[in-house]
């Protein structure tokens, strides 16, 4: 999956932010939205176009939790482990999903690039705890069993 990137698309993003180096975070966010991760080739290209060093862009990309240098799955499942979800037992849900998808803390994405499972500190939907999101859609009041059913439903959609 190395570096199939369309520079035209990146140009459009740069255009949108008027080649403003201070908008690098927004530019990286839009780039990630296109590819579901930050492809290596994008760094050199952005560096040349924005006049920022590659190291600088890399430092930003690695600082923020939301950026990924590895390809993510088609469905990104985020299990909230904020305080409210934690006290209402979110960890068993995470464990169930990892077990079903044969994933672990160090391996977040399935081989077929369909699912990524990760935790998030707080989604602010604490009233519905425990929650998880699939590509930003919120699923409230989850249980390990409901999570398994959700996986089955997502698999059908593919």
């Amino acid at each position, binding site marked *: 999956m190395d570096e199939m990137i369309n520079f035209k698309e990146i140009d459009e993003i740069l255009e949108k932010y008027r080649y403003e*180096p*201070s*908008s*690098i*975070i*927004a530019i*990286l*966010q839009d780039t990630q939205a296109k590819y579901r991760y930050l492809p290596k080739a994008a760094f050199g290209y952005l560096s040349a176009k924005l006049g920022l060093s590659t190291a600088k862009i890399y*430092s*930003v990309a690695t*600082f*923020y*939790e*939301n*950026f990924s240098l590895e390809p993510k799955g088609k469905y990104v499942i985020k299990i909230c*482990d*904020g*305080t*409210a979800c*934690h*006290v*209402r037992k979110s960890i068993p849900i995470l464990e169930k999903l990892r077990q079903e998808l044969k994933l672990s803390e160090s391996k977040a994405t399935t081989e077929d690039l369909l699912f990524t499972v990760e935790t*998030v*500190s*707080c*989604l*602010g*939907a*604490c*009233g*519905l*705890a425990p*929650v998880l999101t699939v590509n*930003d*859609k*919120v*699923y*409230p009041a989850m249980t390990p069993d409901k999570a398994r059913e959700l996986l089955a439903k997502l698999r059908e959609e593919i």
Partner: protein
Amino acid sequence: MLSNREELIQAGAIYQKALGAQKKKILVCAGTGCVAGGALEIYDELIRLIEKTGISCAVKLESEPHDDSVGIKKSGCHGFCEMGPLIRIEPQGWLYIKVKPEDCEQIVTESIVSERPVDRLVYKKNGETYSTQEEIPFYKKQTRLVLDHCGHIDATSINEYLAIGGYGAFQKALFDMSQDDIIKEIDQSNLRGRGGAGYPTGRKWTQVRRQQSPIKYIVCNGDEGDPGAFMDRSIMEGDPHRMLEGMMIAGLACGASEGYIYVRAEYPLAISRLEKAIEEARNYGLLGKAILGTDYDFTIKISKGAGAFVCGEGSALTASIEGKRGMPRVKPPRTVEQGLFARPTVLNNVETFANVPLIIQNGAQWYKAIGPEKSPGTKAFALTGNIENTGLIEVPMGTTLREVIFDIGGGMRDGAAFKAVQIGGPSGGCLTQEHLELPLDFDSLKKAGAMIGSGGLVVMDEHTCMVEVARFFMNFTQNESCGKCVPCREGTKRMREILEGIVSGQGKLEDIDMLLELADTITSTALCGLGKSAAFPVVSTIKYFRAEYEAHAVDKKCPSKVCQKLKRIYIDPELCRGCSKCARICPVNAIAGKIKEPFLINSGTCIKCGACIESCAFKAIKED
């Protein structure tokens, strides 16, 4: 495009009349919580069904409405998230809970056509039926000022905001007040920052106003990162214009013409509502150049966070807007002197800005009359955890913890006993039974060793292990430590290691003192507010629950039976039939025995995963 004051007043009058003409209104809660529960499907279904009856249905507030149309609106968070999706019917004020698309037909035929409440959808508790929202105990004890509009107007429409007098405070500030007047009003109101520290807003604005710089910035901190807090999210989603208005007034008072809102990327709905609100305000000429024919220019941009808790800290937040790693810097210079792009910057949080129009409109004296004099006004809290009514509430400062948890929150879930409440997120502390009469305001909490923080209240019952909670927060802080200063980067790591040891049975009595010593060092030497407060949850849990720490460290027991590693799993020989299922399922081969005779668990090998407990058909495997 409104080009002068008269046109703004006129627009307000037109939409006020239009809103008044809608005799019936349906307000569908469209906060994150209810949307997740299916509120948008309900909204669409209601429109479909109303149109089927032949009644005209107004989804947008038009300047010339039909007299008989039913207004249907996506409102901000009603707050009673536990009961969502919520629907409010006006003018009667009926509140329907846990509404499903299939309930819509009955709502339309009974409540809209025949004007009767649908009894099966109203809130019931202890044999009482509460058909109107105002009667429900959850709402009765609240004073909703900042959240007043949430649940009552369409959150996605500037026209509705204008109809209820929106941008009136901005108009007053722009035409009738000097910069000094505005700042004086805010200063005299004693408004204190709602983001955590409680710094007087008027003083902050005065300092920025004094700076000799051609460029100044107004920044709104919407990076509500504390786990268990969602007040700011609800304001951004439910009443975005109120917050924009507050920022516009701040810009006017301090001489700034650019504003930024920094919002967490985890709040996509808030971002889209804000984008829409900014666009509408721009189209009406309330943002942009020469606003309402004056020489005041003001623009607002949204900056999306990328998932770093530390960006809630002022200097980290401004660094992030500048496109850098969000790491705090040494102060001074302070943000009011050199903030965003090294220019003087007013940095306030969402709720603070949302208070501003209220104060300008009603005056400092009115504001000061609410709550205690030193920290007046109201505060929004997010009630979560093991509490009956989770949700978003707003009470006058100085309301006691008991009123919040038991009267509004409805007490604990499933009849469990109250143990503690974590206030102020990972930078806060916990409060216990003995603090229930404590008034919630900045100064009283500080005395008790806690802080309001942004306003998250995570309520914990007797089944919660406080050592595990402390470990959870320390783990959070350690993960989110930006790594710039040693005390926070290394200190929190060591504290987490010690806490992990204690909860897994490796603890020693001396560990407790070591934790306190580390806490002391980190608090006095860390660079930023987050580091300085990182140890607070540990210090306060040790202070109030030392016995629990000792039980873990010395007796290797978790009194709340939460910590896995301290559990002992055993097979009851009376109940075991010797089927060997547990032995086959055990991932570490810790169970052995002879078929048809009681099996045994080797506690040395057992990792207490609990897989055997689930597998046993005879419930013979127990833990203590």
